[in-house]
C-alpha cells in the first residue's frame, strides 16, 4: 500500500538528482505544487519526459536549472505564447533536447507498460524528428514487403509524477479519463501522486469509481496538496488561472524576471 502523507517533500524524496522523471501534458493533472517543491529543493540533472507535451512545468524546471535532458513533442504556453525559458535554453544550448512526436512518446511508455523492448509506429519516415533520433530504428516489417517502419525503444522512467483529484484510504487514485496517467504509472519504477483530497472509502468497492481508478499497488506515495495543479487546470475540477499564466509569460520573458517569479511564487513558499 502506498504511503499517504501530508508532507509533500517526503513524498518527493524518491525523485533524485539525475533520475528520469515522466510528467503529464498541461491539461491532464500537472503536479505544479510538487514542481515548486522540487525547485525549492534544488533537484538537478533531471531527464524530464513530458507525455507528450508540456507548458509551465517544463518551462519552470528548465529555467530553474533542474533539467539536463528534455524529451517531449512540444513546450508552449499555448495562448500565452512561447515557453520563454525553454526557448532560451534551446537557443543557448543549456539543455539536451530529444524532440519527439506525441504518439511516439505514448507508444514508448506503452512498451514499458507491456514489458517489451520496443514498439512500432507508423509515420516519422522522412521527418527530421526521426533523422535526429539515433535511438530510433527503421526496419523492414517482416509482415510486409519493402515496408519500412520505425521501432521506438521503451521508455522506462525512474519516477512518474502527477496530480489527480482524489485518492481513497487505501491509496487507490481516481484518474478518470486521463488514462495516460495509468500508463505512466505502469511504465515507471515508482509513482508519486499529489491529490486534492483523500476520501475515507475504497474506490474499488464501487464499480463506477473503480473504472477510473489507478490501483494503489503501482504507487509509492500519495500526498494531499490542495489546488496542486495551480495555476494549471485540473480537468473537471478547476480551470487554468489565466491571469497568473499571463503574469508568468510576462515575467519569464527575461532571466531576471524569471528569478523574480521564483522569488515571489516558489521560494517564498519555503516558510509555508
Amino acid at each position: 500500500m502506498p504511503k499517504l502523507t501530508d508532507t509533500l517533500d517526503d513524498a518527493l524524496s524518491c525523485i533524485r538528482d539525475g533520475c528520469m522523471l515522466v510528467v503529464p501534458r498541461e491539461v491532464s493533472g500537472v503536479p505544479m505544487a510538487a514542481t515548486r517543491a522540487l525547485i525549492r529543493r534544488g533537484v538537478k540533472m533531471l531527464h524530464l519526459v513530458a507525455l507528450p507535451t508540456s507548458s509551465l512545468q517544463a518551462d519552470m524546471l528548465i529555467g530553474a536549472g533542474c533539467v539536463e535532458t528534455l524529451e517531449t513533442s512540444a513546450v508552449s504556453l499555448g495562448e500565452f505564447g512561447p515557453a520563454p525559458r525553454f526557448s532560451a535554453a534551446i537557443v543557448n544550448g543549456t539543455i539536451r533536447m530529444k524532440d519527439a512526436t506525441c504518439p511516439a512518446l505514448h507508444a514508448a511508455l506503452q512498451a514499458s507498460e507491456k514489458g517489451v523492448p520496443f514498439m512500432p509506429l507508423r509515420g516519422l519516415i522522412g521527418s527530421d524528428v526521426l533523422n535526429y533520433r539515433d535511438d530510433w530504428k527503421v526496419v523492414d516489417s517482416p509482415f510486409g514487403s519493402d515496408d519500412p517502419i520505425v521501432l521506438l525503444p521503451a521508455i522506462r522512467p525512474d519516477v512518474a509524477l502527477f496530480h489527480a483529484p482524489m485518492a481513497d484510504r487505501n491509496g487507490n487514485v481516481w484518474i478518470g479519463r486521463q488514462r495516460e496517467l495509468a500508463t505512466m504509472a505502469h511504465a515507471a519504477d515508482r509513482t508519486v501522486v499529489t491529490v486534492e483530497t483523500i476520501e475515507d472509502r475504497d474506490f474499488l468497492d464501487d464499480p463506477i469509481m473503480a473504472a477510473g481508478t489507478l490501483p494503489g499497488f503501482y504507487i509509492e506515495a500519495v500526498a494531499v496538496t490542495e489546488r496542486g495543479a495551480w495555476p494549471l487546470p485540473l480537468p473537471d475540477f478547476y480551470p487554468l488561472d489565466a491571469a497568473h499564466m499571463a503574469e508568468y509569460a510576462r515575467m519569464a520573458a527575461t532571466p531576471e524576471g524569471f528569478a523574480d517569479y521564483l522569488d515571489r511564487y516558489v521560494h517564498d513558499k519555503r516558510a509555508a
Partner: protein
Amino acid sequence: MFMTSAPRDFRDEELLADIIAGLIGDSRHVAVGNASPIPATAALLARERNGGARPYVSLLQSRKHNFFTDGARELFDCAGQGRIDVFFLSGGQIDGQGNINLVSIGDYEHPRVRFPGSFGSAYLYYVVPKVILFRTEHSKRTLVPKVDFVSAPGGNEPNVFREGGPIALVTNRCVFSFDRRKKRFTLQSIHPGHTLDEVNDNTGFDFDRPAQVVETPAPSRETLALLRGPVAQQLVEVYPQFAAQVFGVGARVSA
C-alpha cells in the same frame, strides 16, 4: 487585412471558416487541435450544414466537444485506425513540397529561433486522409522554398506507408490545393480584395497557377446565418474571446 473596395457583409474569419468547411465536406470525424478557433468554427459549420448529424467534431481543448475517454493517446490511436478524416496543421515555415516546420529556424543543433515542437504532426500528417494546412500569415517568412527542419514531410517515397497528407493550404490571401503525386501546390482561388501579384510577391515557394485566376467566393447568406447562430453559440465554451470578438456572443470575456 483584406483590401476590398466593395462593401462587405462578412468578416475575414467567416470567409476562412467557409473555405475550410468546404474542404472538410462530408466527413465522419474532424478533430481540431488546441488554439485553432477558425478551424473549430469551420468544423462546427460543416456539421451544421448536415443538420448537426455529422461529422463528429472533436475539439481537443474542450471538455464538451471531446469524445475521447482513453487518455491523451486516443486521438493518435483513433487516427491510426483510420477514424479521423480531417485534421489541421500549421507551421512556423511551410515549403512548396508541403513540408512543415514546427521546431526551429537555423541549424537544428544551434538554432536562431525555437518553436514549441512537432506535436503529433510527424504521425498525423501520414495517417489522416485530409490534412488542411492553415497559416494566416502569408509571407516569404512563413512560406519558404525549403523548411529548415522537417517536422513532417508533405510526401514520401512510394514504399513508405502513408494514407494521409496535405490536401490544401489556406492563408489570409488565398487557397492552394496540394497534389500529393507531384508534391506541389496549385493556386486555387484568391480571396476578395487580394491580387495575384500580391500572392506572387509574398510566397517564397514556386507553385502552379491556373490559366484563369478565380476569386474565393464570399460566404452565402445561409452560411453566415449558421455561423452567427448555432456555430457561434457552440464556440463560446471553448473560444470565449474569439466568439465575443468575431460574433459578439457570450456574456463574459475571459481566457
